[in-house]
């Protein structure tokens, strides 16, 4: 069983690969950039399906080819026949509230599976989400009795819509690995330390909070920022001046999340949703979050000054 669970995530990544292959096939019917679009999704399918088997440098090389294709605008959205509102309304009248069963099943089953523990360990996220989706898809087929061709087309359309943007979180994680390999984090914190002389408590708190925000915006990840900035700024400027480490730590982390709300580097939270929800301006989510982020930064400074001292 444990052996199987180790391999299980790969099964679901293979299904992701199949979705990519089907989109690659559908891309050949595009009117624009047929070949480029098809190669892009084909390569992605290969990386999904055989990622663990390929040598890492080969995967990196394939990614470069994909980058070349997107940079030269060879990856395009296809044209799809829209189903009419009338058709959808008819289906909706026929099926009634049963249409919600698969929609709720995706979240509900993933939730249930997240409580399951095998040998004291939680299931891998790919397994919980993947299994939930497979079950939901089966339910949807039973309830809606969709045509195969129609479903394949709809799936390709969704994937082409989110497009290369959906891969940004993975790519940025890869960039983060390069950054940490060459020691960018330590470099930035040493720069900040050089600029800032030893400050008063109020200035120290402000520098720590802003440091968390800015560093998170650059790296796109509050967790990476936390260890670097807390060691470099939080301890000398805030905790050693008498701040309660519990409060300083807790607020430092959420201060970083304010940065996450404002940066395109946190692509999985700010850029991919634009694609998923069909928002045209890719800065729209960040714009909607900006007032909250700015207010919360001020709140963090105030709370840290009042609760930690």
């Amino acid at each position, binding site marked *: 069983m444990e052996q199987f669970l180790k391999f299980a995530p790969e099964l679901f990544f293979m299904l992701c690969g199949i979705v990519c292959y089907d989109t690659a096939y559908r891309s050949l019917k595009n009117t624009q950039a047929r070949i480029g679009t098809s190669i892009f999704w084909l390569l992605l399918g290969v990386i999904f399906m055989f990622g663990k088997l390929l040598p890492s*440098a080969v995967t990196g090389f394939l990614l470069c080819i994909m980058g070349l294709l997107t940079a030269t605008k060879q990856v395009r959205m296809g044209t799809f026949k829209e189903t009419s509102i009338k058709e959808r309304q008819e289906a909706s009248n026929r099926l009634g509230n049963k249409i919600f069963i698969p929609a709720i099943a995706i979240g509900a089953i993933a939730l249930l599976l997240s409580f399951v523990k095998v040998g004291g360990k939680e299931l891998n996220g790919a397994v919980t*989400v993947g299994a939930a989706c*497979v079950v939901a898809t089966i339910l949807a087929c039973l309830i809606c009795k969709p045509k195969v061709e129609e479903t394949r087309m709809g799936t390709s359309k969704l994937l082409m819509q989110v497009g290369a943007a959906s891969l940004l979180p993975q790519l940025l994680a890869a960039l983060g690995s390069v950054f940490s390999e060459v020691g960018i984090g330590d470099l930035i914190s040493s720069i900040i330390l050089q600029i800032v002389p030893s400050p008063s408590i109020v200035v120290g708190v402000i520098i720590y909070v802003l440091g968390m925000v800015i560093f998170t915006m650059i790296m796109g990840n509050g967790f990476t920022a936390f260890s670097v900035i*807390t060691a470099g700024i939080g301890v000398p400027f805030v905790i050693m001046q008498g701040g309660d480490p519990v409060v300083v730590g807790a607020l430092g982390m959420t201060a970083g999340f304010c940065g996450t709300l404002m940066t395109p580097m946190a692509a999985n939270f700010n850029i991919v949703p634009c694609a*998923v929800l069909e928002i045209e301006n890719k800065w729209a989510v960040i714009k*909607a979050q900006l007032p909250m982020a700015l207010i919360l930064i001020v709140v963090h400074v105030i709370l840290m000054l009042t609760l930690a001292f």
Partner: protein
Amino acid sequence: MEYLKLIGILIIIFGFIFKFDVFAVVLISGIVTGLVSGLDIFEILGIIGEAFVNNRLMSIFLIIFPVLAIIERYGLKERASGLISNIKHVSVGKILSIYMSVRSLAAALNIRLGGHVQFVRPLILPMAQAAGEKVKGEQLSKKQDQEVKAYAAAVENFGNFFCQNCFPAASGVLLIQGTLAGLGYSEITLGSIAVASIPVALITVVFTIIQVLLYDRKLKKEGGK
């Protein structure tokens, strides 16, 4: 020159500002950073490829697309708006406030409920859009439709981020404890960090509700014209 390593960050910033192709910009930034730091190209491609494969989980939502395609084709949105239009006094702000409250509570209890693909697109957004049309009394304009979508996405992030650390075994709380212990503050309990995270969580929920209810007023005003 140690500072030359920072060139990757500059590439990213310029790439985003001038709207170059992001996929290529990120790759170039990684490769250039590696090269100026003395890594050879195979090492760099290896690091990038390995991290990309190890983070495939971030793109697992591809697997949701078939079921989304089916239920949207068979009238999910139409049904949701039908149901919503039967409820009196419904509004975008109220729908999103309820989602924020439930989402935050779930996050605080470490229950993985939420997600832009799993929840917002199939359930929350259709309800919010339908509610918006009900408040306005007519179809949302293109601009308003985009705004409702952006708020729905933002609320998902607010609820996710600021409440998760209220759970004592959340990964963020573990990281805070681990980092502080490494810096010599080893007496800190997970529970005390979780408690210290509560004020920000509550404030965020309140501010979010205010923000989306303010949007309701804006929408109503625009609808009256």
